[in-house]
């Protein structure tokens, strides 16, 4: 990896907006996306013609959703690019938008994630590689197997893993944009088994929605009179993919360890410096795996720590204060953008009853089929 471009030319988040994540509905994707973009513009105080480029993250909408959606804000002729990177599509849209600002090409750039849970078509399935599964192993079983391996190694209980979902459902209950907004007891979370120790409420819902963030340079902050206290800075942005690991290696956790290490080095921080983490918790076990992988705690320590409330809002570090993928939901394209919106809200001190006290440093983390991993580290503006 070369030099971190975000170190030379600061990139700030100046506007955030969301359309609630929800179950599949007849609402057109254009309406979902425009709701989020208009909210982000209103939040930033910028006007649509101020936006010079847009990156549109979606995994399921098909070809060319960007211009038909964004033209309804007024067709200004701005640069529009479609971004698909599986579950990390939205995160990758943010990464490319940040690079666009850091490069000096644009001063105000939109990253928007929008998706509808329909028309699944996954390229690796038609890659001609073959396997011995014949459709018997789906994502929840992939993670159920990781859960059994992890629990066997560290003696972590099914209840400790389920505590991830209890926490994230409680956070989602306080998030008006979450698909699931209901507090759940440990007994509720442990009921309704799906695969291994993974139960229905320990698996994320895939629905629809939209999330938008507007990124801007120092020059734009000055030109438009944007309050720097409401403009957290993106310190680092790192994307990696799975390497050829030895057999039996937990792929997603190893990839996370490698990607977060680079992101921490670029940002000049240590994992334990973080106040807020939005993690790819599509399945409850992932939160424990990734917190350890990123070095926030040692191997096998995440289970006892979650039981002690270390990852609650108000704990050592608020993990998935939005509700995470488990409760806020995982509509694919929007998910990674929504993570950046939540961390921005937290770093501004505007998260209301989900606020992590004195939050100064935050991280967003997504993995996607491939596997790919995208990580951002953000810092609060001047207080």
């Amino acid at each position, binding site marked *: 990896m070369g030099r971190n471009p975000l170190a030379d030319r600061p990139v700030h988040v100046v506007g955030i907006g969301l359309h609630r994540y929800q179950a599949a509905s007849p609402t057109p994707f254009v309406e979902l996306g425009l709701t989020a973009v208009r909210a982000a513009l209103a939040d930033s105080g910028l006007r649509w013609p101020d936006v010079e480029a847009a990156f549109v993250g979606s995994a399921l909408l098909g070809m060319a959703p960007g211009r038909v959606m964004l033209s309804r804000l007024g067709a200004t002729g701005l640069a529009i690019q479609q971004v698909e990177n599986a579950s990390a599509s939205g995160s990758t849209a943010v990464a490319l938008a940040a690079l666009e600002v850091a490069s000096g090409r644009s001063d105000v750039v939109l990253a928007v994630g929008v998706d509808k849970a329909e028309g699944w078509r996954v390229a690796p399935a038609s890659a001609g590689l073959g396997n*011995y599964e014949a459709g018997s192993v789906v994502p929840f*079983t992939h993670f159920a197997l990781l859960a059994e391996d992890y629990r*066997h190694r560290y003696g972590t209980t099914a209840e400790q893993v389920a505590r991830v979902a209890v926490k994230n459902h409680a956070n989602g209950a306080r998030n008006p944009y979450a698909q699931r907004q209901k507090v759940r007891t440990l007994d509720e979370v442990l009921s309704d088994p799906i695969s291994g120790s993974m139960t229905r409420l320990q698996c994320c819902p895939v629905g629809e929605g939209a999330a938008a963030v507007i990124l801007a340079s120092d020059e734009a902050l000055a030109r438009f009179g944007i309050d720097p206290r409401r403009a957290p800075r993106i310190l680092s942005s790192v994307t990696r993919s799975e390497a*050829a690991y030895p*057999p039996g290696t937990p792929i997603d956790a190893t990839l996370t360890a490698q990607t977060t290490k680079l992101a921490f080095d670029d940002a000049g921080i240590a994992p334990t410096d973080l106040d807020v983490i939005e993690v790819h918790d599509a399945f409850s076990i992932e939160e424990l795996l990734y917190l350890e992988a990123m070095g926030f705690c040692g191997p096998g320590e995440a289970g006892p720590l979650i039981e002690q409330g270390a990852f609650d809002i108000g704990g050592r570090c608020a993990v998935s204060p939005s509700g995470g993928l488990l409760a806020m939901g995982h509509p694919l394209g929007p998910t990674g953008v929504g993570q950046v919106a939540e961390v921005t809200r937290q770093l501004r001190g505007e998260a209301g009853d989900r606020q992590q006290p004195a939050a100064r440093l935050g991280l967003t983390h997504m993995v996607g089929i491939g596997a790919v991993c995208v990580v951002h580290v953000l810092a609060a503006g001047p207080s």
Partner: protein
Amino acid sequence: MSATPGGIIPNGTRPVGTKLNGTRCRTCGRVATPPEPYGCEQCGALIDSLEAIEVAATGVVHSSAVVHRHHRPDPVTPFTVIEVVLDDGPALKGLLVADGEAVAIGDRVQGTVQDGRLVLEKER
């Protein structure tokens, strides 16, 4: 033999520890099964550097999970998915044989391929 959620093999048809078709990279030694059709995932060697080999369908249980919900009628739920690290290298996912004895992490298993699926049971 305990009654256990099983897979798709009718009673009487038992795995025999068959060989699987595979490839080994002459450059880096990476073993793949099913055979690698494009190029070595570890070192990028071209297909003509990959030699056809037989891979023993025996190994150690790395993890397992009983699946209670499935989006298709086949396999019939509940069934048990096993992740096995083969003695010859690769890690694969397969199903525990129907009415097979339950397996634990670390157990040795042997398998065969039935209807495109690796079907495993405890090594005897």
